């Protein structure tokens, strides 16, 4: 079974989605613990938005090699440093009012199956949690979600011609909704199923790795950094 590497954010947080039964094969490291060999040893990497991006710059050549060998990269946040070769930097949305931040679905994707796009636009009636700008998609990427008003592309997936797959989410981590009482809670388990399917892993095998324990109750000490 292939493991997934999760790079910890600056708060060293262990996110709540680690408690999902689908998360049994995730290993976590801080950027300062990264070795070039990690980009050979792992076939999938998850990056949260609170990552020290500057610490990843020296690893950009290894990231490119990882992708060229068929690696799966899931990146959350605003890309502002040359961490992923060939991608452009974050562009903020043109407005910050509620009507500027409504999300629209452009293409369906297994990660968002059963996820109501209104649950991405609004959290307790407040807009803007999901995305407030765009890490611009490269030519050939499949656009999944964008802001209805100015067209800022928030989510895209790109099967690179050189090999590898990048799933981009321009915003707070997609797994931050895991304990919400909306359809957005489905994103985190579906993301893990999607990644593991690309890796050829059996979800039954992964679920057997997880000790029986309750899902995060949202009261953990790291709650504010869970996402």
């Amino acid at each position: 079974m292939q493991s997934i590497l999760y790079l910890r954010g600056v708060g060293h947080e262990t996110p709540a989605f680690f408690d999902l039964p689908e998360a049994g094969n995730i290993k976590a490291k801080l950027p300062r613990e990264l070795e070039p060999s990690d980009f050979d040893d792992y076939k999938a990497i998850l990056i949260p938005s609170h990552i020290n991006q500057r610490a990843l710059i020296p690893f950009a050549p290894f990231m490119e090699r990882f992708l060229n060998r068929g690696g799966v990269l899931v990146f959350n946040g605003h890309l502002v440093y040359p961490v992923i070769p060939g991608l452009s930097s974050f562009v903020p949305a043109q407005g910050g009012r509620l009507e500027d931040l409504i999300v629209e679905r452009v293409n369906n994707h297994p990660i968002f199956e059963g996820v109501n796009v209104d649950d991405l636009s609004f959290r307790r009636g407040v807009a803007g949690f999901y995305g407030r700008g765009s890490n611009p998609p490269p030519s050939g990427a499949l656009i999944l979600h964008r802001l209805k008003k100015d067209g800022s592309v928030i989510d895209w997936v790109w099967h690179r011609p050189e090999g590898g797959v990048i799933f981009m989410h321009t915003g707070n981590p997609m797994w931050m909704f895991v304990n919400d009482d909306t359809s957005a809670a489905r994103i985190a388990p579906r993301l893990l199923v999607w990644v593991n399917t690309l890796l050829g892993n059996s979800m039954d095998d992964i679920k057997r790795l997880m000790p029986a324990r309750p899902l995060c109750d949202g009261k953990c000490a790291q709650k504010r950094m869970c996402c």
Partner: protein
Amino acid sequence: MNIAYIDGGTYYHHDTFHDPELNPYFAANIYAPELYQTDLSSFDALYIASRQDSDDLLFNQEKILHFLDAGKTVVVAGDNAAEQWVPGAQWTDEPVNFWWWLTPGEDSGLRLAAPEHALMRTMTLQDFTWHHHGFFTPPDGAVSIINTTSGGSVFYEDTVSTKGRLFVTSLDPCYHHGSHFMPAASRLLRGFLPWLHRQ
């Protein structure tokens, strides 16, 4: 005042530092993992942006205390484990009410504690008000500028714990401003940084 911006390498540290409205107030950007090898002698103040890897700050505790002992100023913004390395900082965690403003009659839980403080000639309580992640108990002799109704402080000035001047806050304006999300956080930076720069 020459202010060095301590940058933890995240996108929100990047976007705050490079904001054309705020950048002129910083004399330099120091990447936190390189702080240990940086000569600080030309700076009068360190602005330690919110939400960094606290290991980098703990590693530099002695250097930062030496800077304060030279009579200089250090601003420690929120979520930097200040209670582990800032003299006098005592922290109490509290559940965060992100949603108080959606409930009619609900209160932010913040109060202006030092209306006479020079900072408040150009700022208001609203510039410090979004949500807070707990509170500090300032040491005796320190001045709380913004209190919580639970008896703590989310923004205080401490000139007694070191030979220098400390501003300690639990608020995280760089995170929100750099995320393009929270007008009050932007107002805090637009009010506090010019004031600090003029000192």
